[in-house]
């Protein structure tokens, strides 16, 4: 069925002059909702690539007679049903041969993925309330994903998903929460995307998938997080927490400690203190609580040492001292701190010991470099004072010598001026 269609569409697109599109011509001069698609299509990526209304709606765009243009005999389907939309889009988007001509690197498995998603499954079961292609990509003004105005651009994804998933009324019959986007807006991931401008940082689709959208299952949460946080996941998988968290209900994996949508910047407050997540399971003075206390203490100690070194070096630098080598070395200490934070996810304190020791050594070395630079600064000031004193004495001596030399007006004569 698809092959003959391709034979019709592709040559028409590639080898012929763009024909006059009577759908757009007529609908542009109409009024009301029937005009809207004709106005929107100018921003559409398909339109820009030579496709027209008839390629989705069928009919004959070359005819200015409505009875011919919108004749069912010409394949006119009118407004496709919601259930038919994914298959209609897949007509081209699942065709490697066709897509290669327009977007050679674009995937062609969107429809297959969609069918595995909660959205796709429910649509197949007859629930037309779920998202289809056009609910996320828009209808007549479909833009490329990289276009900042596209509803599926990373900066607009949370709003696009939130349009349905934050709507309590719409979600009521599914019994799923509606605070995901609200929580996401408090997260470090949102900060990275929307404040840091890092478009590779996670939005909804990064964890849930886009076309195959469904919540990560209990056993796959760590794998989803691990797709970016690789080392953390590897250590977690070998940790004593893995079987316990996975066996527990309500999500499991990384979200037991970090939560899911509202993931905040981790700190040692998660290990020690009144807000410690470890304390939710580990009673005080138990082995687990003691390990958390130890690991939290180490991280705090290394963090404080590095901060102190950084402050001393900054003080030396602002005094004009050259401490760039020590500052570069200090970065290695920061790396050790990150390594220790990663090693924490093995939940064996001994794994953290090596990077903590290495980091403390760097902190100590750079602190000494900073203190030496400050000492050197004092030495220079002292040297300056001494040399200034000698220079002052010499200048005074010269002045006295001049006075003595000129005591009796010696050295002065009066002669006619030169030019």
């Amino acid at each position, binding site marked *: 069925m698809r092959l003959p269609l391709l034979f019709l569409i592709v040559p028409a697109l590639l080898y012929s002059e763009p024909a006059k599109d009577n759908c757009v011509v007529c609908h542009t001069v109409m009024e009301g909702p029937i005009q809207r698609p004709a106005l929107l299509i100018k921003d559409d990526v398909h339109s820009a690539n030579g496709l027209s209304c008839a390629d989705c709606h069928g009919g004959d765009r070359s005819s200015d007679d409505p009875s011919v243009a919108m004749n069912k005999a010409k394949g006119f389907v009118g407004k496709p049903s919601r259930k038919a939309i994914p298959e209609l889009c897949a007509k081209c988007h699942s065709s490697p041969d066709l897509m290669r001509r327009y977007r050679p690197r674009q995937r062609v498995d969107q429809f297959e993925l969609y069918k595995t998603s909660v959205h796709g499954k429910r649509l197949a079961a007859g629930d037309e309330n779920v998202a289809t292609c056009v609910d996320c990509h828009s209808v007549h003004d479909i833009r490329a994903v990289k276009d900042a105005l596209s509803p599926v651009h990373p900066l607009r994804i949370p709003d696009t998903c939130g349009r349905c998933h934050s709507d309590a009324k719409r979600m009521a019959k599914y019994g799923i929460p509606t605070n995901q986007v609200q929580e996401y807006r408090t997260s470090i991931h949102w900060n990275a995307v929307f404040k840091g401008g890092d478009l590779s940082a996670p939005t909804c689709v990064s964890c849930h998938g886009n076309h195959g959208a469904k919540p990560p299952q209990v056993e796959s949460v760590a794998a989803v997080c691990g797709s970016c946080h690789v080392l953390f996941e590897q250590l977690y998988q070998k940790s004593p927490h893995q079987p316990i968290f996975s066996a527990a209900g309500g999500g499991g994996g990384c979200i037991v400690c970090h939560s899911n949508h509202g993931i905040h910047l981790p700190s040692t407050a998660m290990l020690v203190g009144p807000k410690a997540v470890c304390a939710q399971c580990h009673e005080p003075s138990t082995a687990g609580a003691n390990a958390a206390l130890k690991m939290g203490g180490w991280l705090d100690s290394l963090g404080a040492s590095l901060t102190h070194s950084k402050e001393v070096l900054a003080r030396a630098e602002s005094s*004009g*001292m*050259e401490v*760039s*080598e020590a500052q570069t070395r200090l970065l290695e200490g920061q790396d050790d701190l990150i390594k220790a934070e990663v090693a924490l996810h093995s939940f064996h304190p001994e794994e953290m010991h090596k990077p903590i020791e290495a980091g403390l050594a760097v902190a100590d070395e750079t602190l000494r470099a900073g203190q030496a630079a400050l000492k050197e600064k004092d030495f*220079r*000031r002292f*040297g*300056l004072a001494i*040399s*200034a004193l000698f*220079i*002052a004495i*010499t*200048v005074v001596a*010269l*002045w006295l*010598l*001049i006075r003595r*030399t*000129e005591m009796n007006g010696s*050295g*002065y*004569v*009066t*002669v*006619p*001026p*030169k*030019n």
Partner: protein
Amino acid sequence: MLAKVSHWFDDRLALSGIRELMAHKTVPVHSATRWYYFGGITLFLFGVQVVTGTLLLFYYRPTVAEGFDSVRFIMTRVEFGWLIRSIHSWSANLMIFAAFVHMFSVVFTHAYRPPRELTWASGIVLLGLLLGFGFSGYLLPWNQISYFATKVGADVAASTPGIGPSIARILRGGEDVGAPTLTRFFALHVMVLPMITAALVVFHVLLVQKNGMSTPPWVPASGVRQMKFFPNFFLREAMVWYGTLAVLGALAAIFPWELGEKADPFASAPKGIRPEWYFLAQFYTLKLLPSHVWFIEGELLGLAGFGILAVGWALLPVWGVRDSGEARTRLVSGVGIFLATYLVVFTILGYLK
């Protein structure tokens, strides 16, 4: 014994002539005498540059790979390397400042009158050479600021009509600032410019020696009090040089010259990139000019203006002196005040904007 040694040298070097000259050389004493010191200060700072520059040469390596690190090595590892480098950088700036003051003091005391035309012209060329020292030396630490400032400077040179692209290519050693630029700037800075400058300094000082110190036109013609150069003026000059040394030492110790970050040609230019202060007025003027004035490019027009101004300024003894040999004091002082005000105001504006 001492007299014998003195006599031995005297026979061979005719030192008595120099002694005679020293004994009879005098310096006029009047309200503007203090401005005479700025020529000496410039000379003193040039000497400091020669000494500190030679010391820096022991460690500096003029390559893209090692240039920055070798300066950092001087700053952090070499005993008193920080002091030598800071003094070299501060002294360079003070020397250019002192040269500007010296030039304007000559203008306002009208010392460019005959027979001192060549003294003036050689002084202007010397100032240009000092600016050349500043431009070439600025790149040598190969840090981010100097790299991009040199790029801007070379681009400005490239926009000179006709010969601009050739000058820029000769300066850069290619189409862009890179390894060949660093080596040729180094060669210019430590060999070509010093040789020319040293010869011209000797010429300039000999002319001062031959023609004596000029007396401003307002000093009464009936007679002027003169101070013996040696020891009276010499001791005063020594005091001023010592004072200058103290200022240099203080600046180097309290505000050591920054090293910055190693140049990265692939990085974006640092924000607010601008040249050294002595090029700021010209830089700001070029920035202010519209892209086109009538059919001429704004930058081109600015450069042509600076060129005409420089030539006109060097020809001051021609247009600033009447046929009788007297200075056109009002005209020259007016132009001098205008030029000095322009330089000060535009340098400040260039710094602030």
